[in-house]
């Protein structure tokens, strides 16, 4: 549950009991989903939640949250759906809400939204409502209150401008345009009685609800593995002083047609045959296309399917955060020994360089912590490695290139770098045959 991360890393120890939190955001940023997640967590901890909605009927709410697998049909949850009313009826509406609070005695109240509730009030009345009528009831009873505020698109301020001052905490959910995608950013603007060390976090809305982009702690992994695994090509293992280390990152860079994907298939398949879990993530092909390639090289997928998982992700349709979240989910679920990402180039084409560098840095930490040998393929137009930060990230760099000689293609491989290994410094020839890659002496 991502709230463990929220209340451990983002807002340590959670919202202060009895505090009033303003949760603001533009349409579609997931305010109701976030509030529902908080509600679900509160019920899980044995609390009682009163959810006042001026935006959607009860059944619509239940249907939405059930998609995330959250069951709110419990006696510890009460949903009050109210229509918005004109100024003259507001005091009665507020009276009804306060009466329900007193009767139900919740530990958490969510009002969705305070904008709809107070739209007909003047700023003085809003302040008085938040401070006196609602404020006095919730504060004296130690009830935590989340007030959802609608923030019109493109406008910086929130509501009347008084809410931010009256409440104890302000959280803003924002969209930030980043290349072709929008990043969703969770920002803690204010939180009384809590020390917020880093105010901004990214999140994604997935089929599990709102998921935080859990930033791994930026610290070096002290324990490094001395254990190597095979690349699946005996000759390549020999060139790399016995294979690749667990937890290392290998970049296979080469021009189109040099067989980068084939090299990766060898590694994934051989390790799966040995009983090591392997995950092959393709950003360019379908799963069927990868399985067909394996078949062409005589690799029997059925014999290793328990240990080899092939996943296809279309990077054009995903934001950098959601790709990272997916990869992280795969890593945590499968706990692989080998992770193939084919290709880095496809990711690069769909992310700006800042986003990509950040994602690669987090990915590096993730695979290092989990001791996963990771292979990235990279398409290059020449025999040089482009300087995009990958060369420092990579423990091993394998360069593939080719010359056209009369009527044949002469493919060459060079181990440019292999940290902590006495690797070959020579250029070797190789071929791609019906059995895959064959490296010559």
């Amino acid at each position, binding site marked *: 549950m991502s709230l463990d991360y929220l209340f451990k890393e983002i807002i340590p120890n959670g919202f202060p009991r009895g505090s009033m939190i303003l949760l603001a955001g533009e349409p579609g940023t997931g305010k109701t989903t976030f509030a529902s997640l908080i509600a679900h967590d509160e019920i899980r901890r044995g609390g009682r939640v009163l959810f006042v909605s001026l935006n959607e009927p009860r059944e619509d709410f239940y249907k939405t949250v059930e998609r995330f697998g959250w069951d709110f049909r419990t006696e510890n949850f009460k949903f009050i759906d109210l229509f918005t009313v004109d100024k003259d009826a507001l005091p*009665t509406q507020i009276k009804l809400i306060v009466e329900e609070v007193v009767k139900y005695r919740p530990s958490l109240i969510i009002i969705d939204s305070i904008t709809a509730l107070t739209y007909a009030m003047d700023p003085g009345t809003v302040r008085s409502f938040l401070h006196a009528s609602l404020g006095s009831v919730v504060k004296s009873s130690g009830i935590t209150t989340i007030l959802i505020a609608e923030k019109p698109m493109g406008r910086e301020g929130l509501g009347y401008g008084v809410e931010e001052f009256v409440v104890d905490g302000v959280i803003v959910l924002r969209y930030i345009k980043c290349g072709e995608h929008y990043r969703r950013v969770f920002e803690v603007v204010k939180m009384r009685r809590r020390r917020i060390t880093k105010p901004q976090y990214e999140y994604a809305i997935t089929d599990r609800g709102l998921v935080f982009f859990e930033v791994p702690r930026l610290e070096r992994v002290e324990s490094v593995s001395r254990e190597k695994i095979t690349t699946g090509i005996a000759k390549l293992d020999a060139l790399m002083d016995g294979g690749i280390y667990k937890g290392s990152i290998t970049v296979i860079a080469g021009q189109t047609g040099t067989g980068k994907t084939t090299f990766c298939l060898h590694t994934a398949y051989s390790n799966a045959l040995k009983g090591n879990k392997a995950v092959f993530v393709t950003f360019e092909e379908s799963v069927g296309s990868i399985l067909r390639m394996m078949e062409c090289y005589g690799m029997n997928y059925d014999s290793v399917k328990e240990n080899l998982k092939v996943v296809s992700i279309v990077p054009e349709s995903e934001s950098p955060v959601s790709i990272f979240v997916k990869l992280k989910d795969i890593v945590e679920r499968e706990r692989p020994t080998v992770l193939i990402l084919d290709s880095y180039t496809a990711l690069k084409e769909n992310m700006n360089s800042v986003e990509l560098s950040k994602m690669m840095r987090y990915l590096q930490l993730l695979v290092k912590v989990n001791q996963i040998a990771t292979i990235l393929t990279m398409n290059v137009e020449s025999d040089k490695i482009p300087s995009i930060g990958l060369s420092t990230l990579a423990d091993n760099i394998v360069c593939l290139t080719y010359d056209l000689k009369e009527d044949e293609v002469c493919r060459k491989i060079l181990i440019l770098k292999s940290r902590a290994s006495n690797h070959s410094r020579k250029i070797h020839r190789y071929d791609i045959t019906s059995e895959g890659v064959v490296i010559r002496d």
Partner: protein
Amino acid sequence: MISNPEEVMIRAVRNATRRANPALEKILETHLEIHANAKFELAFRDPKKFKELVNKLFGEYSGRLLEMLIVEEVKKLVGIDENVDSLEDAVEILKLL
């Protein structure tokens, strides 16, 4: 001066819906006509049925809010300040006047 208790209730329902939201008056009237072949007089003649139909249209708590507004309007129209909380109680008081 309104002398008929049923008329008082009709006026109270009308005022309450207008206070809540002017658009609600017509919506509620049409809903009552379709489902009970009645208008706002149903609130006086059969308050339980009236509340059921209101809840069906607006939901339980919006229905309760409208009930609170109607009771407030009844009290205002007849000039009483008694502790009345439900539509049924308001009807009983109107009948006694």
